[in-house]
């Protein structure tokens, strides 16, 4: 376990050093989500002025609450999509030859992919996370039933995101043809997960697809606990589903790593040079 934690920390630091050379890159992690949020907000805002909108969706009747709703969506999306990007970058290690050097070592493979995902999460999301929380607090938009709900919201966002990252890393490092996942998990992810629209407004089949992604339930918990003053009991269903998804993703990641490494050892496909 001690070795696994060292591997997680080392991998996260390596990931940071590989991808972040200039401080400007760090600030782009704030600018990009804020711009996305602004575009979404000003796109949705004119529509919310319609008389029926407020009746159907209470949040739409209050521009400040609408902004908070969208900001929560952008924050959670930043968490999850940063892991898609990290997995995409990790997959290039196979081509550059470093993945083979890593696989020569006795390091736990699961610890490696968790470390890679956790590193991406911290460096991509911390700035926007801080900004979003500070802005929401300053604008008095947070409605929290109990201070412990901050912890619930944070854990509900962080742990499934790390599991998601581990799963994606496991999937991408052994496959040469997984580039399509990058596209598949960009716009469709925010659509099916209810990042910019309330889930009730989506067709049933989209909601069903969305349930397979932990981002959907993470967002329900995040918005419920920080914006709607919900307690743990009220969020029990999404929390339970999120826990099940997280366990499933970690198990899938471990299985994929085992299967992928065994296959690579049989076929020699880990080597690209």
């Amino acid at each position, binding site marked *: 376990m001690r070795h696994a934690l060292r591997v997680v920390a*080392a991998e996260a630091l*390596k990931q940071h050093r590989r991808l972040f050379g200039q401080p400007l890159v760090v600030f782009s992690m704030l600018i990009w989500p804020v711009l996305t949020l602004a575009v979404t907000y000003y796109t949705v805002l004119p529509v919310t002025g319609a008389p029926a909108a407020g009746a159907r969706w209470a949040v739409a009747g209050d521009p400040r609450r609408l902004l908070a709703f969208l900001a929560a969506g952008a924050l959670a999306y930043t968490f999850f999509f940063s892991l898609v990007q990290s997995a995409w970058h990790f997959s290039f290690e196979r081509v550059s030859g470093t993945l083979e050097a890593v696989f020569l*070592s006795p390091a736990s493979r699961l610890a490696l992919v968790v470390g890679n995902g956790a590193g991406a999460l911290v460096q991509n999301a911390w700035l926007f996370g801080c900004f979003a929380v500070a802005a929401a607090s300053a604008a008095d938009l947070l409605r929290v039933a109990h201070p412990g709900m901050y912890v619930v919201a944070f854990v509900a966002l962080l742990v499934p995101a790390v599991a998601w990252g581990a799963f994606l890393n496991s999937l991408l490092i052994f496959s040469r043809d997984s580039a399509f996942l990058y596209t598949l998990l960009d716009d469709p992810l925010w659509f099916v997960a209810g990042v910019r629209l309330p889930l009730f407004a989506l067709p049933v089949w989209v909601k069903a697809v969305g349930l397979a992604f932990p981002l959907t339930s993470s967002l329900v918990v995040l918005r419920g606990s920080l914006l709607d003053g919900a307690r743990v009991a009220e969020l029990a269903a999404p929390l339970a589903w999120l826990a099940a998804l997280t366990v499933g993703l970690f198990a899938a990641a471990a299985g994929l790593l085992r299967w992928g490494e065994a296959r690579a050892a049989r076929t020699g496909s880990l080597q690209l040079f």
Partner: protein
Amino acid sequence: MSTGIVTTALCKVFPPRRTPWSWRARGTPVAAVSGLSIAIPAGQVTGLLGLNGAGKTTTIRMLSTLLRPTSGTATVDGLDVVADARAVRRRINVIAGGERMVYSRLTGRENLWYFGQLYDVPRARLRRRVGELLELVGLAAAADTPVERYSRGMRQRLVIARGLVNDPAYLLLDEPTLGLDAPIARELRLLVARLAADGVGVLLTSHYLAEVEQLCRHVHVLDGGRLVAQGSPAQLVAQTDRQHVLVVTVGGSVPAAVEAVRAVSRDTGARLDVDVDEAGRDRLTLRHRDDLAGPVVDAVVRAGGSIVTVAVTPPTLEDAILAMSRATPAGVR
């Protein structure tokens, strides 16, 4: 428990390529290594030679746990490379030529620190070890420079340091001097010899056969994935019946001296060619398994001739490897 690396009837057949959504295989199975039984003891450098495609790299990849043998076994100090893969990885490391296997945006020190963490080198020791290795490979001054600013030789030296970060009991070297300048390659050879003297078991593959002759006490020769010969470099050269080439230039025109050398040629069975050099002197070329310089010079002098030049070219390991590879029937490859 047996010590050293031991392979018994080791085989690797690469299956034809198959995509997850198609059961139809493309291509045919490729046997890269067949029935290989070799031993790599601790404390010496063992060579693994052969032409391209002989199975050297596949063997190294099986020993380093990156490839799973199709059949047969390979053990490292009694630990099976499949069943005890994690324990084996702690005891070995691989250095491959070609400056890959390090992160270009990280500094040399950061690279070694990172790999040290993966090998679970104790924290206090790792700090010291990283400093020692950077010193050893001559990168101490560039320790905190990103690797992308290193020259090719510097990168390769860092790859070498990476391979030593876990203080391996066995080191597998796959063309480690590929692309290195002569002085750096020489330093690496000295380092390898020193490691072996300190008890590290080294398996070396290299296309620079002089390097192998200099370092290896024992050499295994592969061809078409099979072991075709083994022994010391001198034994391998002797096995292939390669010949010493002796060239003697005789001063003046002394027919008796040439006749005396003809007699030596007849007695020993050496092949003799006689011609004249640019200065019109008799030049005698003899080819024989043994070095005939002594008897030939003696015969020339006794016959009243004088020696202007004597040159002996002994058979090389390269000649032997080429001869062994040519001798293997095509069907076996």
